[in-house]
């Protein structure tokens, strides 16, 4: 069985998180406590998820696992998107399909 593509996973993501509400305003990135240099911040992550850019996201696994899950982005998101839950979802995706730590 081939690994599901991010596009297929995107449907799952939209079903399990409210990522579809993102208006790409960048408030999440503005408040994110991570250093602004050399780290992919939430707005970019959400955009790639929306576009189903699987390879782009996998290439930046480091950024996905840098997230503090501090929820400051979620607290300030005007669209009420559960951004940390999207990040946790992506970590699960990487753990299954890239790191092979859990069954696909």
């Amino acid at each position: 069985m081939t690994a599901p593509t991010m596009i297929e996973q995107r449907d799952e993501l939209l079903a399990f998180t409210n990522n579809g509400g993102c208006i790409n305003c960048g408030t999440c990135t503005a408040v994110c406590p991570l250093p602004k240099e050399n780290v992919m911040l939430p707005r970019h992550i959400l955009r790639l998820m929306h576009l189903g850019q699987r390879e782009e996201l996998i290439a930046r696994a480091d950024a996905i696992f840098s997230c503090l899950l501090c929820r400051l982005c979620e607290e300030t998101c005007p669209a009420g998107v559960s951004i940390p839950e999207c990040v946790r979802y992506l970590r699960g995706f990487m753990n299954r399909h890239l790191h092979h730590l859990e069954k696909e």
Partner: protein
Amino acid sequence: MPLPTAPVLGILADNLRLRGSVMPLSRKKATGWADGLDLPRGGKTVLYTGHLYQLMPSIAALTSKLERFEDSLLNRAMGIGRAVNRKINLSSLMGREDRKVREVCEERLRNIARLVKAAGVNYGYLYEEELYSGALVYDQGLDSTFAEHAAKVAEVFRRNGVETAITVDPHTTHVLRSIFPGIVSDFTLKVRSYLEVLADSPAVPVRPLDLDVAIHDSCVYARGENLVREPRALLERAGARIREPESHGRKTLCCGGPIESLFPARAKAICARRLDELAAAAHHVVAMCPICLMNLEHGAEGRDLTVRDICEPLAESFCGE
């Protein structure tokens, strides 16, 4: 170069599956804090530590070791390390823990136990039956590993007839109260943080605190559990004067602790920014999460700043300890 994520997470997941905790603890290390307290075994209401405080000395030792790996060739050997760890518990060999750190963590748990007594609550403790909550693997998206472990934790509560768990840290509180009910069927355990229990009790301070204090809110308590009022109410009841840092309450700023093991350099930069904010508010800082405490205490070395667990001034005031 950051640490390789896959082998580090693999080691944590393997440890949880094979040994019941992300970093296995001996019985002495898990329950030694309760020696001499004569806490009854089990009961409908228990103090549930979730092992986070007990794990901190091992995590501190491991983090210090990993920090040195971050830019070294040994970084590449982490994959081999994971394979070996399946046979031998490598985390116990990774770094020698500081005995003083363990004493501090155990005393913090004893303070919390005394504070719950001061709140007038009768409770027991599950001793060696108590399990790690699984919070770390949940955060890392190891969902099936977490679900498997959560079922074991829930079974311990069911088998012991526990109806209410009084928790001691934000991560354990959050997974038990907000995550378990979504993944464990018929999970009806009532979960309350000791800060909520004490704030809702008529406990009165026996010794007033004469102190200006800045509160470092835990992100998980503040935004995950809306637990913001209680630490302020308790410190004010004890006589302390709250000096809020710029980011506080539901807008609190992370200390960097959650990524300290995987990305130590980034964690340090975030911690320094948070310490600047706290130092601008007061000389005395209190925090309520063992991960925040480890990170902030480490970062505050060399600064004119005192970082304490909130249970310490509260125990001094409410228990006269």
